[in-house]
């Protein structure tokens, strides 16, 4: 049964089991995204993820099939995170921009490279990190990212471009073919 059918069941029959299946399918990307936004605060991320799903249950009738269910959910999650940040005055994301990464060539194996990339990612501007997270960790298209974050499409592309340009030396040094 696909998402649309589960949503229809949840709406028409008020079927919480169908909604539970939707939660099981989408909990991982939502929690991943919120863990990213909260800088790894898993407890806060899971609280916000729970709020996201409860909100989506309450407002399921507002879901239009114009976007995918996961895009809609992540948009709600992003709004909840912004509200929580404003409400609780938690540590805001630092608007620090590190313009360059150390382009020192490395012969690191894949696992090390992955770890290096994770560290390098934290040195990017928050918006660049978020765009890269959604694009490469979650596999969303540029249009979907724009919808989730409420940014113009060009802004998404700009942040991805900048982030990739900063990280590119690391990949270039790792893979001599490119």
């Amino acid at each position: 049964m696909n998402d649309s059918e589960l949503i229809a069941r949840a709406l028409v029959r008020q079927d919480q089991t169908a909604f539970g299946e939707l939660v099981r399918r989408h909990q991982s990307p939502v929690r991943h995204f919120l863990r990213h936004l909260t800088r790894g605060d898993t407890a806060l991320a899971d609280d916000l993820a729970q709020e996201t799903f409860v909100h989506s249950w309450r407002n399921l009738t507002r879901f239009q099939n114009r976007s995918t269910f996961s895009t809609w959910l992540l948009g709600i999650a992003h709004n909840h995170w912004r509200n929580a940040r404003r409400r609780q005055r938690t540590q805001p994301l630092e608007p620090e921009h590190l313009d360059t990464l150390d382009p020192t060539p490395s012969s690191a194996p894949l696992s090390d490279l992955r770890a290096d990339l994770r560290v390098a990612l934290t040195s990017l501007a928050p918006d660049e990190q978020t765009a890269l997270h959604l694009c490469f960790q979650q596999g969303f298209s540029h249009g979907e990212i724009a919808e989730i974050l409420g940014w113009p499409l060009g802004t998404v592309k700009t942040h991805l471009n900048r982030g990739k340009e900063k990280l590119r030396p690391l990949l270039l040094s790792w893979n001599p073919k490119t």
Partner: protein
Amino acid sequence: MESENINPSFPENDEFEPQWRAHFSAPAIPDEGFSERVLAALPSVENRPIERRRRWFCAVGLVAGVAISALGLIISNDSSPSLPQFVNGGTAAAAQFFSDPVMLALGLTACSLWFAFRDRWRLLPRW
């Protein structure tokens, strides 16, 4: 946050794209009871805002239907000119139809039901 649009023509896929995805991909987070906690936190169906609105629409439709039917009965029993006489041309037939209090009440009920449940009609299969 919504910043400038510097390079909107940047290609969506470049030669690094597969590598980016391969290196950044993260394993799925195991559920570990999360779904059950969410389901336990869901408000009951009756308390969903849409359900409360439905009840209101149906109640208002019912009251309006009864009131207008009663009014129609009073008017039809009265010697004063009936409703269709005030309506010209194309709408006269409809006015004639709805001048029957029962039809008027049925029409109102149908309208309020349609409005209250309009979000569900789009979920019905298309023939």
